[in-house]
Every structure is written in C-alpha cells, then in structure tokens.
C-alpha cells in the first residue's frame, strides 16, 4: 500500500550512526558482502548492484579513492531525493561514510543541483554534525554546487563538473569506478542509494523491493510515495487520485509517454516493454483534456536545452526534433514530417554518446506509436 505519511516510509527510518558502528565491526569486505546479500541496487535509474560497484572501486589499485553522492536530481518529474535531503539527511551522510569506509576513501563529495541550493545551509549543518560524532579520522564531505545543468547527473559529466570543467559527458570506458576524479577510482551513488545503504546495513527487516515513486501531473494527490516493485498501476492511480479521466502517463522525460494500463505491474521488466525505461520511478499523469503532443513538445524543449553539445547527433538532433514538433503544433506538418520525426528519433538514439542522447527520442517514438490521434488533431488538413 502506498504511504505518504513520512513516519511510515522505510526511506525515512533513521540510522543514528548505529549503521556506521555496525559497518566498522563488519570490516570493509563484510560491508560489501552485506550489500550483496541485501540486494541493494542503484536508485538513480540504472539499477547497478551497489556491492559490485563498491568492490570494483575497492579492488582497483590506487593510492587514493573518492566517494561522490549524486544529488543532481534533475529529471523532470523527479523529486524523491529532495525528500531524503530534507527529512533524513543524517542517514544519507551516514551512507556516504559507510561507502567511504567500504572502498577506503577519505574525501567525499555531494554534488547538489543548483535548483536545490536552498537546501544547502541545513544540509551543511547536518554534515558537520554527523562528521563530528562519527569519529572517521581524516574523512571529509564537501558540497559541490551545481549550476543548472541536467547533464551533470550523468556520472562522467558530474565528475568533470566537480573538477571544475564544463559538464560534458565522456566516452566510457574507463568507468569512473576505476578511473574517476583525477584519474582515481571513484564511487558515484545517488542520494536514495546511499541512504538505503545505511538502512540496509542496520535493519534486518530492510526491504529491497521498496522504491520511491515521484507522482505528479493532473492528479489531486501528487507527491513522493513508497511502493514495492510489482505494485499495480491501479494502486498508484487510487492514491494519486486523478481529477479527470486519464489518457497517458509519462515516465519522467526519458521513459516515454504510454497509455495508462491499470492492470500493469510496475517492475523494471514490465514498465514499458523495451521501448522505454523505468528510470527513477517518476510518473507524470496526463488527463484527457491534454494533447500528448504538447507534453512531447515540452519534453523536446527540455532535451534541446539540456544537451551538452559534445556529440553531434544529440546536439543537432534534439533541435531538429523540437522544430518538427513545433511544425506539428502550428498545423503545418504533413505525414512525411512524422516519418522524418520517427526516423530522426531512432537515429539519434542509436548514435548518441551518453544516456541523455540515447533516450532523447523515447517520448517521440512512444507518443507516435500510442497516440496517433493526438498528432492527427494537429495535422495540416
């Protein structure tokens, strides 16, 4: 059952430095083994096993290692990490310290997006507070302030930004886990993952299937909810309470725009077949009073604005796709334009360098497939 009341959410359980204490009795290898046993996966969207990431970093030969908390939550429709920073930052900081202990890092960073800068003073206080009680000799946690670039949520771009460069995505390999900040092994975990890490260490009954859902759009009860994987879409809809009849749902921006299927069980595998990705479980509900093309247009604008410009398919492709959608919305498009749009979206996704470019056509491909009538309504008659 979905819960909004903060005291009922697993993610808000406080570990009060007891998780760190337990981690120290387990030893670094023991902590990593426990992460594996608990089945913690990355909560930023890629679902990479945390134990594997930490182990790779720990085993990479180096004289120095780093831990980075990715608090650059920029995906439109996603606001769950903000909830954790606001209401359970101590546990998050403890998670960072546990990661540092497990991989053998001294210097840690929190990359906080510029749009959340108002949360920074309080977060800094909490970092200082936890550090003063943690007794982790020589370990520091520094907040690096983002400045409005979505791409910096992408691991390689984020590291560039911390080092004081333009936030351009870099080709992988090498992976940051073995060659990250200043060429040293670096663990990058998102806010939810690190808070979960602390909780997974401490609580025997910690449930790995619970996920945070950011719900917004045309609903009466938007907000952050905790549901187990496999939750029925109808359960989510019941809690969210749409105002009017729902037409579509958008999974963040890069997940695609899909018809609402109340019977659908939300899991990484089922959530929208192979054509779209579950990401960080953000659902934007769209009701029947809206045309899906308008939503696709706002998403296309987002991609055009946020493309870092490093690779050509994404830099040029996002602009062309936006222009074609503009043409559709002004009633000037003919059928051939839609074919071009589809072709362009597919091409860009196949050739772009990083996750942003590889998903920047999803909203177009899925909306063309599922909502041809919405496009028809705008077509040149």
């Amino acid at each position: 059952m979905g819960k909004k009341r903060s005291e009922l959410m697993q993610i808000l359980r406080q570990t009060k430095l007891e998780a760190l204490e337990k981690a120290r009795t387990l030893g670094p290898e023991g902590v990593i083994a426990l992460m594996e046993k608990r089945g913690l996966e990355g909560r930023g969207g890629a679902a990479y096993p945390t134990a594997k990431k930490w182990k790779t970093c720990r085993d990479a030969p180096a004289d120095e290692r780093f831990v980075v908390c990715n608090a650059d939550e920029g995906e439109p429709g996603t606001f769950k990490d903000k909830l954790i920073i606001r209401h359970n930052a101590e546990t998050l900081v403890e998670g960072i310290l546990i990661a540092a202990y497990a991989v053998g890092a001294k210097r840690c960073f929190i990359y906080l997006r510029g749009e959340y800068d108002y949360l920074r003073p309080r977060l800094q206080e909490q970092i200082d507070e936890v550090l003063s009680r943690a007794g982790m000799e020589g370990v520091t946690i520094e907040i690096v302030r983002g400045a409005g670039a979505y791409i910096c949520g992408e691991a390689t771009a984020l590291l560039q930004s911390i080092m004081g460069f333009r936030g351009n995505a870099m080709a992988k390999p090498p992976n940051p886990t073995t060659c990250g900040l200043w060429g040293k092994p670096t663990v990058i975990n998102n806010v939810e993952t690190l808070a979960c890490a602390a909780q997974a260490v401490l609580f025997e009954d910690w449930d790995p299937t619970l996920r945070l859902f950011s719900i917004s759009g045309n609903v009466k009860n938007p907000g952050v909810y905790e549901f187990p994987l496999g939750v029925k879409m109808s359960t989510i809809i019941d809690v969210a309470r749409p105002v009017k009849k729902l037409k579509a749902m958008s999974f963040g921006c890069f997940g695609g725009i899909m018809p609402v299927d109340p019977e659908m069980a939300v899991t990484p595998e089922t959530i929208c077949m192979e054509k779209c990705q579950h990401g960080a479980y953000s659902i934007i509900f769209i009701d029947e009073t809206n045309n899906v093309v308008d939503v696709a247009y706002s998403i296309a604008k987002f991609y055009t604005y946020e493309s870092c410009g490093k690779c050509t398919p994404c830099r040029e492709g996002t602009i062309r796709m936006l222009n074609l959608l503009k043409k559709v919305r002004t009633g000037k498009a003919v059928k051939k334009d839609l074919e071009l749009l589809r072709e362009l979206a597919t091409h860009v996704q196949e050739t772009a360098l990083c996750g942003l470019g590889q998903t920047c056509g999803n909203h177009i491909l899925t909306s063309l497939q599922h909502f041809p009538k919405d496009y028809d309504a705008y077509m040149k008659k």
Partner: protein
Amino acid sequence: MMAKENGKKDARPLMNILHEVQEKHGYISEHMLKQIAVEQDIPIARLYGVVKFYTMFHTEPQGKYVIEICGSPSCVLNNGVKLEKFLEKEIGAGIGETSKDGMFSLYKVSCIGCCDEAPAMLVNGEPRTKLTVERLRLLLKKIRENEAKQSDGEKKK
C-alpha cells in the same frame, strides 16, 4: 580523459568559487573572470567556457530578483504556460531578459523538482509553489511595495 588538463585536486571546487563571486556581485563580470583566472591559475578561455556552460552563471548584470520559471511537463500540465505569459507581461521582459527598471530577470528552466506543488518557480533561488495568476500578482505587488519602502527609507537617510 584525465591528462594534463586536470582541474586542481587540492583547490576548492571551482563551481563553489563561481557561485560565491556571483552571489557577491550579482554576476560574473569580465574583471572578476580575469581575477579568478589569475588566482586559480586557469586559462581565462577555459574559465569562460565553464561559466558559459552552466545556465545559472551570468556574465551580464541581472535584475534584483532573478525568476526561474519551471518548464517541466508537470508544470505545463498545471497551467504553467499561462503563468509564464502573465509574468512576461507584468514585468515587461521576455524569457532571458531583464526588465527595464532592473528589478526582474526572467528565465525558463528545465525542472526545479517541485512537481508535486506545480506550477512552480524559483525567486532568487527560493521556491514559490502552487502558483496562480492571483498569487503571482500579489507576490509582485509585495516585492514592488517593499522596494518602494526601501528606496523611500534611503532617501530619508
């Protein structure tokens, strides 16, 4: 990826330095850029490239109130576009512009993470949520009244 051109490991993060300069001066002027370049030992061309990459850094003077309207689908679905048009008209500046009286600068940003309280915007970094035309009108009125009071106070001094 990590050759000679590395950022300096032991320096304070450049992003934080740039934010602090902007907070102090309202924007990052050419003069300030030159100074940071010397202090941090970074080629000025590279530094300029960094500043220009991030949308929150400004190289031109900004209005006293920087307004960032959220353009996320959640805000669009909750009347966000209407509010954007209203703001443009009320302050007399389009997206990316500063009003003639130097009071407001207007920007549209991707998502400020207030989707559950849409439509929303940031005013000098502070979130304003669940906006309506009426609430916006009141907010602008309040800002203008406060400004008028302040300038009156300064005149009396």
